[in-house]
């Protein structure tokens, strides 16, 4: 049942079923890091990067688990492998490119507990994507996450100039905006047809 075209998978993960606005994955960084446009785009890039890597890992683990017929170890191995991969990537970047590390570094540990990453691994397995499809799915999900984060940050920067009542400031108004964004993204449904 994995006959979907690459283009459709990308559009689906990025816009139609946006991880943040339709699946509510990665809400914590979405609420926490969306204050500034600059940090938001860097966070988005870091997440996309980790998504690509963990999608590859998840594909490998799934193949291995199917081979040894141990589906019950899926979740525990996904989380352990993703967490350690993020650690390795962090060390690798620090050694190879200090400049990139300075840009992404502080976000990497945060990403380990980002549900969007684990969610991606689980969804791609559920959907039965092959290796290439998984990669495109990860790319789409990352792009969608970045898009949502950047949009939110842009709106919140503007919001700083308004005089919102004290009770709605902070999380409440962010959630309301997220709801409106989510409604807007509903308009993308059916794009794959």
């Amino acid at each position, binding site marked *: 049942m994995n006959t979907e075209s690459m283009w459709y998978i990308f559009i689906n993960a990025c816009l*139609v079923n946006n991880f943040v606005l339709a699946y509510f994955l990665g809400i914590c960084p979405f609420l926490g890091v969306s204050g500034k446009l600059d940090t938001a785009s860097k966070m988005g890039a870091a997440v996309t990067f980790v998504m690509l890597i963990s999608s590859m890992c998840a594909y490998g683990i799934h193949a291995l688990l199917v081979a040894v017929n141990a589906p019950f*170890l899926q979740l525990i191995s996904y989380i352990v492998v993703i967490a350690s991969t993020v650690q390795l990537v962090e060390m690798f970047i620090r050694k190879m490119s200090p400049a990139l590390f300075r840009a992404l570094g502080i976000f990497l540990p945060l990403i380990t507990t980002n549900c969007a990453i684990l969610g991606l691994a689980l969804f791609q397995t559920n959907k039965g994507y092959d290796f290439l499809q998984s990669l495109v799915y990860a790319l789409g999900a990352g792009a969608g996450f970045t898009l949502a984060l950047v949009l939110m940050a842009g709106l919140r920067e503007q919001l700083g100039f308004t005089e919102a009542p004290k009770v709605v400031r902070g999380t409440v108004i962010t959630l309301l905006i997220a709801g409106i964004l989510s409604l807007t993204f509903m308009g993308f449904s059916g794009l794959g047809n």
Partner: protein
Amino acid sequence: MNGQQTIQASQEAGSRKMLIAMVGIGVMCALLIVLTYEGTSERISRLRAQALQEAIFRVVPDISSTRAFQLTAQGEFTEPAVPDPTRPQIFAGYNDAGQLKGFAIEASGQGYADVIRILYGYDPVREEIVGFYVLESKETPGLGDKIEKDVTFLENFNGLDVSLDETDEALRQDVVTVKSGTKSNPWEIDGITGATISSRAIGNIINESAAVILPKIKAEMNLFSDQQ
């Protein structure tokens, strides 16, 4: 006591302790998971089979037993003990007397939000679709999910014409979804207002699946004729 020695000793003890702790926890976790899996797997597979059975009985009327087939990539029917999850299953249904009454065919395709998986019933004698059931869909609640609940829409699948043409290799007429209330031919599906794309997707899914599978079924009819 030399300070440095103590630190080194405690570090060594620390890493050994770390190793023991991680291995201990790992073993314990693995044990717990395996125990739960062993304890529940039988009931889970029974519940799953039961749910599928109910769906099959719903789309093909008057049957009491089934045989599960799959179409291989070479276009041949096999009866695998463990079905290949990437290929749709085809169930032949038999009545109490062991006569073939119809088929329940699994199909899937792109809906409005995500992939929709359905099961439809096929009567080979009348060459009609006789039942329809949504196995899995993420269509918008309140709008797209009418394909599961809307009574007039479901009425479409009580005698939808899917007869084959003279060559027995293709459908005489493609199954199409038309605008709500404009159905005028037996091979048309009356769409749903407010769920246009979802209902059209159902038409496409059935058409694609039927065009491939129905000619094969007709060609291999004797394969299914008796109950085993």
